[in-house]
């Protein structure tokens, strides 16, 4: 149902309907926020990147091909902007250690195991941006490798290699911690 709504809103937005574009923003805000926040570990930066992503989408929606997947297209814009942000600011960290103590970052599944969560976050911190991006899109957003490859304009085997490397780094880091 949501996908059908998205197609309809997208078609209307493409024709210049602003309210339809607002609906597209609503439908995709949580996904975009989750990605940009996990990638930057900075709530403010994530919100700025979201805004840039939606603004870019608004400007370019006239050229968007209807047969393409709108969410994937948005992911692609967000991913590029986030990678650029990380490159520009040299913010390769996932979540700064200090941020793990901030009340705004909720980790309910790790209640009572704060050190473990910090160890995992620290491991995520150390991943190169592209590995981190692949890891987030796959692990948290549950996207197929083929879709991630399309988003990143890479081939599928490269994306799988990125993921495998990220997983092994995190696994090794977890073993070192234990």
């Amino acid at each position, binding site marked *: 149902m949501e996908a059908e709504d998205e197609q309809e809103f997208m078609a209307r937005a493409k024709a210049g309907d602003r309210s339809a574009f607002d609906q597209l923003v609503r439908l995709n805000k949580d996904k975009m926020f*989750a990605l940009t926040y*996990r990638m930057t570990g900075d709530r403010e930066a994530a919100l700025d990147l979201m*805004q840039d992503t939606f603004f870019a989408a608004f400007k370019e*929606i*006239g*050229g968007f091909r209807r047969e393409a997947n709108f969410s994937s297209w948005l992911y692609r814009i967000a991913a590029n902007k986030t990678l650029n942000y990380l490159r520009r600011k040299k913010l390769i960290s996932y979540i700064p250690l200090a941020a793990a103590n901030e009340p705004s970052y909720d980790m309910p*599944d790790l209640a009572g195991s704060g050190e473990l969560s910090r160890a995992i976050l620290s491991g995520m911190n150390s991943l190169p941006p592209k590995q981190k991006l692949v890891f987030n899109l796959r692990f948290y957003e549950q996207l197929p490798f083929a879709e991630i490859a399309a988003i990143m304009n890479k081939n599928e085997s490269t994306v799988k290699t990125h993921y*495998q490397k990220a*997983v092994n780094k995190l696994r090794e880091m977890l*073993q070192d911690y234990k």
Partner: protein
Amino acid sequence: MNCEQLKKELSHKLGMLSLTPAAEEHLGSCAGCMQYYEELSSLEEGLRFQPNPLTKEEFAHLQESLENKISRFQNRAFLFYRVAVRYGASLAAVLLLVFVSMLGHNSQKLRPLSEGDSVAALISGTSAGIITDSTEASNLTTESAEGTDTNDETLDDQYLDVIIGNYIEAYGFNAGEMLLGELNSDELRILKSRMKTKDIL
């Protein structure tokens, strides 16, 4: 299935870890792979946390900022068109008369825009580069004001394109973009097709 294949398969499945019958069979007889599987299982468990979702206030702020940004963008584009419509007719008429005049008087020639030409000068039609004789230019400007009622639309399109095209060619696309404001993709497409500046854009 060997150990390397199994580890590769398991690592690709992290996040939705599951075992195929072949993998289960291998794990039953390989302590090393079983340990690898258990490590991935605990890693998967440890990674299952969610950041606080976007709050209503944050989203409201985002919507407001986005709305402002979009409005500014649309206003800039609208402003450009207004300026183009407002000054286009007189500018086109001036240029046409200059052109006709130069055909008649071989000594008066158009030359490409140079670094010294400013947009304001172009719009006012008094750039030293466009009209080589300023007295003649002044006369032509006066004549053009009287002649703008005829063929306005054709002249607008034709000569605005020439001016903008020359400007982009002289200063590059970025300068052209500054001149035009931020255009959306439709506007850019129209511009490209009308101006034949694909190599530049």
